[in-house]
């Protein structure tokens, strides 16, 4: 430990305003966050006079060595246990920035406090112990930073003194953490070797012949305040309606864009149109006129030209790009309550200023971001994350997170207490629920590994037969592999290989309820022939009943949105359950089926679902597949002989003319380039663009 010498003001206060940046310090317990903060405050000359002496005296009184962490851990209980229970905030500045520094606890049981702290931050410093390396709470905090919308991360590898500043070990940890953060879409701005205890790497360089890195303070000086969403369309969530005098004032904060007297507004969820009459303020400016406009971040009031009925929770939005509304929300969330989040759980759901009662309709995925192990069952445990669908008792107004980061965030209350929150991936009503929007899905944390494995398998499988490819996949990956069949020609050939080889692969079909009678006959015949049961996955009956109630039995012909809502409930959502906890997925896709599928490969990393997808027949032609089926007496659908090349749901599939693209018979009434139901659309972050 260094001697404690009061430093002169390294960074004297200056009159010119410096940007204010809020930073949160996160990382695994005991990796040295509070020590780093104590040292940082000391070295930037930010401690109040007498603080160091007071803490030194306290340490002496307790007969223990001085700890830098005492600076922040000022609560009695924390000094005794040496851990940070809640989040603290403290201010300091450097030459270039004013900082609000938020210390977040590293203990798992205090994750709610870490989230409370980190949600206020513009940037994060992730502390990793040089001896212990990346631990589960390091990963969990990284994952949550991403989910909380933080986009600037500086990593410090602390306690370098304990490993004698060993460059090899440093690089090992650096690669480990940088790869992980990159896979989250959150590449670190810097990875800096430091020793908080010895005061190395904070304001003094640590460079040796082995590396050159900036100091932590140099890295902090490059951080930027989070930008207000000025350039986005207007979102003015209504907080309250005041009638203190003859004015009827709609009060709220402008969350994005700007608003001016005379502007036309669309108010969600009702969709009513209205016009801004005045912007209200107090005290009325000296000019005697109220301001005529207001911008992002301002808490204001407006009056309307008409007496439109508006309630708290409505969003007044730009008429050109209005917000969305609906009673169905799909969200990627973190969960902080001891009671697991699972289907049937009742919640109060808040979106901007609106709140509705909701029930979890489905848990599409669940994962412990510490271990990255997907949960087997439909349940998100305490401090875990996942994707859910919620049905609300009334429509709420909001946006998807990728359209608007402020109005696209949902907060979940359980038993009267905030218990979770996350990013809105989709919002709508059953009848018009948009399909899973792949572009809005954050990438799976082990995307990097998946992609590497996919690339390796692609190379090794080039020369193998389809049957050998299936065997190789089974041999190479641990865990469940699922083959989804719709009883098309390719599917029958693949099922033949799996059954003949007795491979440990689960056979699943999605029974949408609208399949051809011929498909059910073939299903039964196939089970008889091979002696295997094919597991059927069905749509959720409540969702289906609501869909049909809203859009009618053949409502999918009405619009593309209606068709996609139908596909979502009958196919996509059940597929999610069919593939839950699977590590591998075998499909009958072929490269030459359509232009959309031309870019595919034998093996692809499906980072959204966290699995490897094998298309064993990807390089076969239709003729070759048919030839193989005939020679091996594999049962195939009678429909193929009647001109049906690609077979899906009966109402949505028709025969095609010779020479047409194979999938031309699917959803023929819609315009081209959308002959996918969404099953095989990947995230835009995936290795191969679709």
């Amino acid at each position, binding site marked *: 430990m260094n001697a404690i010498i009061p430093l002169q003001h390294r960074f004297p206060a200056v009159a010119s305003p410096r940007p204010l940046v809020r930073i949160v310090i996160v990382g695994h317990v005991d990796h040295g966050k509070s020590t780093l903060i104590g040292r940082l405050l000391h070295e930037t000359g930010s401690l109040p006079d007498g603080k160091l002496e007071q803490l030194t005296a306290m340490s002496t009184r307790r007969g223990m060595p001085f700890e830098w962490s005492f600076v922040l851990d000022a609560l009695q209980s924390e000094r005794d246990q040496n851990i940070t229970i809640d989040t603290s905030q403290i*201010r300091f500045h450097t030459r270039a920035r004013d900082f609000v520094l938020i210390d977040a606890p590293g203990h798992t049981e205090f994750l709610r406090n870490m989230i409370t702290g980190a949600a206020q931050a513009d940037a994060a410093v992730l502390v990793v112990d040089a001896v212990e390396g990346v631990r589960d709470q390091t990963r969990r905090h990284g994952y949550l930073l991403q989910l909380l919308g933080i986009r600037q991360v500086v990593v410090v590898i602390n306690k370098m003194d304990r490993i004698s500043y060993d460059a090899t070990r440093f690089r090992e940890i650096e690669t480990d953490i940088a790869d992980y953060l990159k896979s989250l879409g959150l590449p670190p701005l810097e990875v800096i070797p430091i020793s908080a205890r010895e005061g190395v790497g904070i304001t003094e360089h640590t460079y040796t012949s082995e590396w050159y890195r900036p100091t932590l303070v140099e890295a902090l000086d490059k951080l930027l305040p989070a930008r207000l969403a000025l350039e986005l369309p207007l979102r003015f969530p209504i907080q309250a309606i005041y009638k203190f005098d003859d004015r009827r004032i709609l009060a709220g904060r402008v969350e994005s864009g700007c608003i001016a007297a005379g502007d036309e507004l669309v108010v969600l969820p009702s969709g009513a149109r209205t016009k801004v009459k005045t912007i209200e303020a107090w005290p009325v400016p000296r000019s005697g006129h109220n301001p005529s406009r207001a911008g992002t*971040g301002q808490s204001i009031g407006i009056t309307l030209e008409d007496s439109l009925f508006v309630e708290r929770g409505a969003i007044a939005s730009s008429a050109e790009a209005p917000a969305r509304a609906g009673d169905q929300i799909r969200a990627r969330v973190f969960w902080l309550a001891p009671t697991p989040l699972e289907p049937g759980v009742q919640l109060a759901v808040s979106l901007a200023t609106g709140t509705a009662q909701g029930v979890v309709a489905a848990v599409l995925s669940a994962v412990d971001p510490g271990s990255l192990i997907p949960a087997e069952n439909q349940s998100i445990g305490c401090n875990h994350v996942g994707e859910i669908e919620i049905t609300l008792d009334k429509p709420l107004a909001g946006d998807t997170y990728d359209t608007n980061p402020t109005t696209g965030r949902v907060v979940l209350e359980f038993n009267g*207490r905030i218990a979770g929150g996350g990013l809105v991936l989709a919002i709508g009503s059953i009848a018009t629920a948009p399909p899973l929007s792949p572009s809005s899905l954050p990438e799976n944390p082990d995307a990097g590994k998946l992609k590497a494995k996919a690339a390796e398998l692609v190379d090794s499988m080039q020369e193998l037969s389809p049957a050998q490819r299936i065997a190789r996949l089974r041999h190479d990956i641990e865990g469940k592999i699922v083959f989804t069949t719709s009883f098309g020609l390719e599917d029958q050939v693949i099922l033949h290989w799996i059954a003949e080889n007795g491979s440990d692969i689960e056979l699943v079909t999605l029974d949408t309820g609208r399949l051809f009678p011929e498909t059910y006959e073939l299903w039964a015949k196939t089970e008889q022939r091979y002696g295997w049961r094919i597991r059927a996955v069905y749509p959720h009956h409540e969702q289906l009943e609501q869909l049909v109630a809203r859009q009618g039995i053949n409502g999918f012909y009405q619009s593309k949105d209606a068709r996609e809502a139908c596909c979502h409930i009958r196919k996509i959502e059940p597929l999610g359950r069919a593939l839950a906890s699977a590590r591998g997925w075998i499909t009958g896709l072929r490269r030459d089926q359509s232009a959309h599928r031309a870019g595919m490969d034998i093996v692809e990393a499906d980072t959204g679902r966290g699995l490897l997808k094998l298309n064993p027949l990807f390089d076969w032609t239709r003729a070759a597949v048919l030839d193989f089926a005939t020679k091996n007496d594999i049962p195939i659908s009678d429909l193929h002989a009647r001109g049906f090349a690609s077979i899906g749901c009966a109402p949505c599939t028709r025969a095609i003319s010779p020479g047409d693209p194979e999938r031309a018979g699917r959803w023929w009434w819609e315009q081209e380039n959308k002959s996918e139901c969404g099953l095989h659309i990947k995230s835009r972050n995936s290795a191969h663009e679709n």
Partner: protein
Amino acid sequence: MDRLDELEAQSIYIFREAFERLRKVALLWSLGKDSNVMIWLAQKAFFGRVPFPVMHVDTGKKFPEMYAFRDRYAEEWNLQLIVEQCPPVEAVDPTLPPAARSAARKTEGLKLALAKHGFDGLFAGIRRDEEATRAKERVFSPRGAQGAWDVRDQPPEFWDHFNASPPPGTHLRVHPILHWTENDIWRYTRREGIPIISLYLSRDGKRYRSLGDADITFPIESNASSLDEIIAELDTTKIPERSGRAMDHESEDAFERLRTTGYL
């Protein structure tokens, strides 16, 4: 928007959330610079009025200047003023050090006032930068039936969504200026022309930085006799704001003990 605009917008948002979501709220007016800024912000939030009572929990030992200020501005700002007296020091936990025990009268007075009026939300003008335990506060901070603060089990609070469902018999402390600093308060006071008590300005080389009971509050050495000079002084000082408040310094955990039992 500059920094003061951002602070103001955030505080107004908090005021409106609490007023909308809670049943019966009041603002705790200590007559100091922070609660005066709070009243000003409330008037902004509600377009020129404070639509709830403003309560002074009186120890009877404030400076005369403070009482004069209260009576003048309660009228000028058209406030619904409630004054509640604190019980005598004999009614307070005798194990506390003397100054803290004296300050704890306010905690007791507050409990009595809560019971009398049935408030489920109290606006309090504490700030994170004042003191380390206050740095850990939530904006909407739940208090138990006895007014106690359970620092080990604070609910999560993020993205300006607040826990606003206090169980029956409990209340919430709502902290609209938690994110402000002492210097922010003075800069805002200067910008908005908010009146202040003259004790904050230097007289004979001393001024009060923080105001409390006359017998346990002490002035600091300072020649700052105007708002501009106070702001300039705060830009360079490293002396803590509450250094003149005796009850904070009697023992290591005196102030924390005050706070967990319900002090502000």
